């Protein structure tokens, strides 16, 4: 399957801690994106990193990309209860229009 793999499948942390989730894929990519999905809702785009970039920041989010290892990580710093959601990586290859999604990480942030 070309679907990206994410780990961990589930992560439970306390508010204020950092959360790290990883994504691995099997093909050359144009860019890699991270999305958040709150329970019962649609996906919301968080951040995009291009294949020629190694690290990117947006607020409390930090994304890294290692194309040699075909992997990416998403770090959420100083987590909040409102960060509780599922997080998906998604990458595009030859056809920029098509996204292939990872298996997702369920993040639970407790008070």
């Amino acid at each position, binding site marked *: 399957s070309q679907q990206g793999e994410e780990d961990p499948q589930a992560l439970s942390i306390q508010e204020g801690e950092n959360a790290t989730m990883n994504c691995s894929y099997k093909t050359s990519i144009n860019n890699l994106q991270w*999305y958040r*999905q709150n329970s019962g*809702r649609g996906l919301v785009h968080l951040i995009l990193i291009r294949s020629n970039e190694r690290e990117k920041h947006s607020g409390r989010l930090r994304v890294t990309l290692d194309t040699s290892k075909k992997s990416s990580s998403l770090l959420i710093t100083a987590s909040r209860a409102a960060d509780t959601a599922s997080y998906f990586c998604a990458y595009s290859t030859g056809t*920029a*229009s098509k996204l292939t999604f990872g298996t997702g990480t369920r993040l639970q942030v407790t008070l």
Partner: protein
Amino acid sequence: DTAVSQTPKYLVTQMGNDKSIKCEQNLGHDTMYWYKQDSKKFLKIMFSYNNKELIINETVPNRFSPKSPDKAHLNLHINSLELGDSAVYFCASRPASGDTYEQYFGPGTRLTVT
């Protein structure tokens, strides 16, 4: 203002029936998508249209037929529904050109086939 909207939000129907899900986006985007998310939360692309033209058609049973009457709308019609069609279906859109690759998702339609 809802950017990408879907109707209905919930759909419960019996096997063998035919049903449609509608999607509309008011973002002025040229490209629209249908995704299927199964019970394990795996999200997989089904179709994509660019300006009313089909550009992506994954391995989907031909019981599923997308229709795009204009670039702001992409509907999904499903014939002879089966139990395995139960899932959440998401519509999404993005600009076709430029440097924007992020997709904007609708709230989803939860389809339950009994």
